[in-house]
């Protein structure tokens, strides 16, 4: 199979954005009927390269060959005609349209919709059957969960006759179960002779599903390897350019007093849905408590209640011996003053003000502190000094305190938020998704910082949807499902299978029958 003409070949492709050399002399060859991974850190040029293939941008130099023929792809239409389909990271769907309407958009087959819709309906029924992609074509896309929306995107590409399917960071928005389902779909596509290109920065996915992998670093292609001849550590090293520790080393926890105690916490949101159900938790000094769970099972609400940004419907939170929900109700600002730091889950929505400069973001939440004020005005010099200090300690790049927050990469933005909260030296630190959208080099750094803080006797709560992260960071793990804490276990006893079952709400404690464990793992 590999001896035939490659389905897609790139020859010395170059692309500049102004002075930035986004793609340097890229050559790539993708065999037909394979799943080919392209891995690299954020900003390595993966998405730019694929946008060139899809005709969103034009290469400044170089050739694109499809099935051995040079193709001039200068717009998405040319790319579609050449048999390329793309599933974008942010779905290109119209929420108010049905699945059917979304799929025929651009290939309506005539000025009147009637016939086109009828034809598409039969054709889609065939495609759904052939690739086992079940979707109700009359459902409104806005009502579908993300996993199904992605399936609509795949169907859209197949309906347009795609032979080469490019998926850009497809699992970023998926739960582990949905991701596994996607992988099964991709395997079916490969078995039916389609070529799949998977762009990702997640090593697990590359190892799980690809046949070959190409690694990009700073705009250049640094390696092409066969997946079976490599491993996670080697790929990580190629991506970052230095050795990376995927598993943080940490000494045994020296557990101290309980700093935060949560009893019988319930929360009903504005729509009347009960998001939290009888939550009991203890957060102790010198320990990292990990909260695992598929996104949307109440973790976000728990974090926000603990941080004081929303109020629980019932239940108590005792912080340092004081009930902060009732008698002396405290909001997020009061809590910050008494040593409770909070790194929000969504740094763009609540962690940073993106159009503000780094130094302005450095004082958010602490803007009243005498450190940053001189009389009635802000003390710009001390703000910049604090920011420079954070930048140095957390290795933020570029090291410019006057750059807008939006000008930093995701990992560096996260470092700015972490630095702000950690440098206030809180006693309890709540961290939501510490490494979402963060490069592996920076992940290693952030994990080390959290461990260091734990070893200094601080209490840390980490909420994360990444099982690997929860397992490697935590000393104790609480698993949430449907608003309940369905189980709590020592990190030493945790396995991916055990946690996965608890996250799916199948097993409600750690002592699951090992036979059932094994069955569900496959």
């Amino acid at each position: 199979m590999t001896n035939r003409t490659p389905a897609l070949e790139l020859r010395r492709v170059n692309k500049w954005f102004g002075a930035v050399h986004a793609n340097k002399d890229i050559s790539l060859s993708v065999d037909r009927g394979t799943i080919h991974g392209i891995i690299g850190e954020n900003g390595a040029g993966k998405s730019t390269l694929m946008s060139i293939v899809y005709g969103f941008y034009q290469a400044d130099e170089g050739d694109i060959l499809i099935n051995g023929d040079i193709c001039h792809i200068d717009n998405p239409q040319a790319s579609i005609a050449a048999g390329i389909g793309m599933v974008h990271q942010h779905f290109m769907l119209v929420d108010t349209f049905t699945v059917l309407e979304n799929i025929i958009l651009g290939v309506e087959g005539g000025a009147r919709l009637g016939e086109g819709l009828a034809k598409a309906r039969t054709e889609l029924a065939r495609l759904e059957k052939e690739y086992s992609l079940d979707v109700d074509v009359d459902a409104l896309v806005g009502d579908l969960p993300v996993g199904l929306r992605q399936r609509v995107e795949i169907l859209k590409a197949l309906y347009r006759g795609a032979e080469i399917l490019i998926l850009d960071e497809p699992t970023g928005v998926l739960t582990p179960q949905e991701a596994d389902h996607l992988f099964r779909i991709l395997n079916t596509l490969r078995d039916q002779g389609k070529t799949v290109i998977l762009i990702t920065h997640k090593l697990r996915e590359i190892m799980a599903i690809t046949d070959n992998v190409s690694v990009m670093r700073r705009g250049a292609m640094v390696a092409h390897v066969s997946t079976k001849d490599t491993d996670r550590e080697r790929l990580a090293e190629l991506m970052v350019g230095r050795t990376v520790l995927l598993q943080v080393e940490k000494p045994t926890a020296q557990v101290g007093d309980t700093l935060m105690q949560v009893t019988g916490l319930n929360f009903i949101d504005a729509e009347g849905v009960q998001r939290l159900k009888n939550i009991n938790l203890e957060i102790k000094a010198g320990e990292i408590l990990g909260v695992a769970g598929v996104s949307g099972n109440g973790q976000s609400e728990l974090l926000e209640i603990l941080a004081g940004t929303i109020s629980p419907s019932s239940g108590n939170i005792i912080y340092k011996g004081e009930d902060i929900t009732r008698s002396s109700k405290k909001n997020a600002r009061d809590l910050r003053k008494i040593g409770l730091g909070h790194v929000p889950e969504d740094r763009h929505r609540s962690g940073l003000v993106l159009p503000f400069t780094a130094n302005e973001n450095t004082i958010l939440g602490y803007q009243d502190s005498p450190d940053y004020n001189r009389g009635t005005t802000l003390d710009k010099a001390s703000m910049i000094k604090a920011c420079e200090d954070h930048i140095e300690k957390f290795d933020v790049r570029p090291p410019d305190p006057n750059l807008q927050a939006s000008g930093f990469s995701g990992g560096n933005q996260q470092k700015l938020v972490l630095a702000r909260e950690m440098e206030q030296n809180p006693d309890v630190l709540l961290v939501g998704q510490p490494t979402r959208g963060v490069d592996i080099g920076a992940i290693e750094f952030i994990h080390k910082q959290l461990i260091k803080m734990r070893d200094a006797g601080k209490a840390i709560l980490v909420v994360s949807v990444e099982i690997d992260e929860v397992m490697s960071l935590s000393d104790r793990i609480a698993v949430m499902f449907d608003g309940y804490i369905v189980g709590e276990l020592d990190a030493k006893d945790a396995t991916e299978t055990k946690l996965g079952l608890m996250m799916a709400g199948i097993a409600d404690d750690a002592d699951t029958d090992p036979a059932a464990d094994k069955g569900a793992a496959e």
Partner: protein
Amino acid sequence: MELFQIFITIMDATFRVATPLILASMAGMFSERSGVVDIGLEGKMLGAAFAAATIASLSGSAWVGLGAGILTSVALSMLHAYACVTHKGNQVVSGMAINIMVAGLTPTLAFAWFRMGGQTPALKGDERFHSLTLPFADAVRDIPVIGYTYAELISGHNIIVYIAAASVPICAWILFRTRFGLRVRAVGENPHAVDTAGISVNVLRYQALAVTGVLCGIAGSYLSTAHGAAFIRDMTAGKGYLALAALIFGKWKPLPTLFACLLFAFTDAVQVRMQGVDLPIVGVIPGQFIQALPYILTVLLLAGFVGKANPPKAIGQPYIKEK
């Protein structure tokens, strides 16, 4: 029967007042559904009213006048597109600029050309659109209720009233049953989806705005060559804004928008009817208050009674390809 006749008279007036509102709100629907805010409906109507009256007067034909009105409105619409689509300018500012420009330019030109205090000459004979009598209208007049309604309410309007009535199902059909409509709705919700489907966002928005121009041109021409018989300065009197309000009230959907237009027109017709009428208990209501009623109603409806309106998601945002 007396009451029924009053009702028919009021409804008759309602249709005539609603005509420009319906046409303008259908016009706005194409623009806004494609993601371009069109606060310039007012200016486009006013420009079309002026052009139609001027050309009708010079050419002696209402139809030539209508053509000129449409051309003027389309030209203004293209100006809006050039500013907002090609150059990604602020859509509200561009629309407002068009309104102010037209409001100033039309009386100035009218004064320079006709020396009639900013008006155009009164239109006579074929220079304006006249009422049409539908077949059998006179024959069935004496049949109670149905025949009377047909003769007095359905028959006896000028051609543009009927065009406005037809425009609603036609616009609905275009928007929901054709390729062009599907694309217009898509580009107003998620232009990125349209772009990745290999369709030009800009060309599509230009096309939608051209349709807006045509419909708005008919609405404006109606004011000066059918409803009225000359151009008078500021003769649109906020009808463009009212049409926009009806569009929002109708949640950007053809049929509810039609009803919103009829409601606004109905209050206006009642208002005319109620001037100086001695009502039980309250007595004579001041004319100013009654005249203000349609606008008060607009504010109340938009503020409280519309409920959650879901505008096209990408409305007001110029489309910029992500890097």
